[in-house]
């Protein structure tokens, strides 16, 4: 009786294994098939999909889009039905447009301005194209006063900074992975920043825009409050360790900010997804989350030995889409769209383990 039961049990297990194997193989074959029939969406094709998407969005009409049967859509990390969320509220396209085209991966990234209920908002968008249809849609919509101000700045600027749009000479182009690994140094250098790393990956001309606001080399006092509800301190021109500063300044360069060790309170930069690389232009479009654990992690020492307490007093996460210009193994321009998310939130595109990890994915 026991042997018969064991036989039946073993048969059941084998059957299950066979079903899983067949299903997996079938899926693999389908994916291979997909790769085979896919391809051929160049820069104009990719940007055309973005234009088509944004027009359909403003028309509140997803039926205008060619999408795959299993298209997946997320907004601010949440999986929604296509037609929900910003699809109901977008009222117009803005004038600022920044495309990152990756014809090898058939993905395109976009950061730009839009209107929602006639108010300016910032949009980060990723589309994945398969067989001339959209198969993945990932969005971040940054709303509120800071996004409004940032959108106005970007529209005043008109077009992305020149360096972003320039081609990398063919002889200087590197592999996708090399572009990604250089970009990833930014996140690794900021996470638990201690000022002791090698920050030579920052070019001297590096500049950063976050939600349309210049947050490096900028002596204009920033509007709004810090995450602690305090007024932002007036920027200072140059990082001077002898002054023992206790907060980093938007007036400093990219490298100075990291050398100060004052970004330590960014305790984890996780779910780093580098899905779009434009090798011709040296641009990398990434998604990530900046966790600020707060509590004891707010207390740290700077390289000069100064003990500092800084950063948000509550657990705090930024959901970010960040674009890097990489050339000669260095970061020249950085531009991000970010919005507050629930602390520890996932992107909707990663497993929980990936989502909690600071390892880069591509």
């Amino acid at each position, binding site marked *: 009786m026991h042997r018969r039961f064991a*036989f*039946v049990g073993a*048969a*059941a297990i084998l*059957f299950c294994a066979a079903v899983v194997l067949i299903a997996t193989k079938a899926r693999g074959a389908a994916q291979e098939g997909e790769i085979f029939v896919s391809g051929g969406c160049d820069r104009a094709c990719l940007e055309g999909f973005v234009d088509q998407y944004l027009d359909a969005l403003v028309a*509140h009409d997803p039926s205008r889009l060619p999408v795959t049967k299993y298209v997946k859509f997320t*907004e*601010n*990390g*949440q*999986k*929604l*039905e296509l037609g*929900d*969320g*910003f699809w*109901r*509220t977008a009222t117009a396209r803005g004038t600022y447009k920044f495309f990152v085209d990756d014809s090898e991966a058939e993905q395109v990234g976009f950061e730009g301005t839009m209107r*929602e*209920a*006639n*108010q300016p908002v910032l949009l980060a968008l990723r589309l994945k194209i398969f067989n001339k249809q959209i198969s993945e849609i990932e969005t971040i919509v940054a*709303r*509120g006063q800071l996004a409004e101000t940032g959108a106005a700045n970007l529209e005043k600027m008109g077009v992305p900074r020149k360096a972003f749009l320039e081609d990398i000479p063919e002889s200087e182009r590197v592999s996708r992975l090399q572009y990604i690994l250089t970009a990833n140094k930014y996140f690794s250098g900021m996470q638990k920043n201690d000022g002791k790393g090698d920050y030579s990956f920052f070019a001297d001309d590096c500049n950063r825009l976050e939600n349309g606001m210049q947050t490096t080399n900028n002596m204009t006092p920033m509007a709004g409050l810090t*995450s*602690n*509800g305090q007024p932002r301190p007036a920027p200072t021109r140059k990082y001077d360790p002898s002054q023992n500063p206790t907060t980093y300044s938007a007036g400093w360069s990219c490298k100075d900010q990291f050398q100060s060790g004052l970004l330590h309170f960014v305790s984890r930069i996780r779910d780093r997804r580098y899905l779009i690389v434009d090798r011709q232009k040296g641009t990398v479009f990434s998604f990530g989350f900046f966790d600020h*654990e*707060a*509590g*004891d*992690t707010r207390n740290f020492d700077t390289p000069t030995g100064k003990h500092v307490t800084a950063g*948000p*007093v*509550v*657990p*705090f996460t930024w959901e970010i889409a960040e674009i890097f210009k990489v050339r000669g193994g260095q970061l020249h321009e950085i531009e991000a769209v970010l919005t*507050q*998310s*629930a*602390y*520890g*939130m*996932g992107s909707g595109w990663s497993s*929980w383990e990936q989502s*909690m990890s600071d390892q880069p994915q591509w």
Partner: protein
Amino acid sequence: MHRKFLAAAVVFVFFCAFAAKTARARPSSHLAAAAGSSSCDRGCLDGFVNQYLDAVVAHDPSRVPFTSSVKFTEDGQRLAIGDGFWRTASARGTFKFHMEDVPAGQVVFFGTMREAAHPVSLVLRLRVEDRKISEVETIVVRQGMFGNRPSETGATDLEKLGGPDPLFLQDVPPGQRVSRDELGKTANKYFSGMQLNDGKGDYSFFADDCSRVENGVVATNGHEGEGGQIGSGGGKNNSVPNRPNQGAPNRGTSYATLSGCRAQFQSGLLHFVTRIRDRRFVILDTERGVALAFTFFDHAAGKTRTFQTPDGKTITAGPTEPWTWEIAEAFKVQNGQIHRILAIFHRCPYGMSSGWSTWEESMSDRARW
């Protein structure tokens, strides 16, 4: 050979059917498990809450008996035990309301705490199995979340109340008690009546004495600007963008100006609450007639902001951007009617899930218990 194969196949099909049934029957099996292991009565469950909160303030998870596979969420996100509020809680507050479900081995706590010395409101659910905590679900209504200012966490108002309405704590006379199912169904009428509210439903499930408190503020006394936070723009915290109708809501076009639970639903003015989803009734205390659900209130915005009230008026109201409240809502139910409602909630990303449901469950407006 064929017969053997057939026998094996039949056994396998039965095996699969049994496995599927077992999986579907999870809530009941939890009840059975809790009852079997049980003997964690009200005092025992409340004791776990106290132990947990003391450990949180001490930032020391080792003080709590957790199962090896314990799951912890804060504001809908799965975190490692010791992360999130565990790092920042600085003291316990004075508002305390324990709701126990002894057969399910679960307890929910509404209360106030201090985080970096600022008052915050906390919702805590614990599941206790074999004298260990196996599930921890929390909502922390804190400053800094989506622009909340320190005064906007509801904690100060809850502490002014002193404690829950005494009616919540009174036993229902044994002859008037109803089944868990009946209790859940009555409470769920609140969510069903609010979702796409049109003023045309049967709202007799509201008792005449029904009142609702939201984040420490009475929301059913008809006073503009005190409560009425469910996306009206008339609320005190988590200020909702409602640009075309800036300022205090107008009498006649905002439910918040109406007195009484039933009158607000009869007005049809809550229509902009487009979906109340992922309704998880985790406490069904038949002795006290207390039901508690975790859920999400979606406001889809866009065209859904424009609707007609039962008297034929066309109204445009509600948030101008997609908006979701993450909410825990407690109901006192007696004689088939809702007498008291107490909710703690805050804003979350539109369409967010609890971390305790599948995506399909999370998007569904079907109640579960």
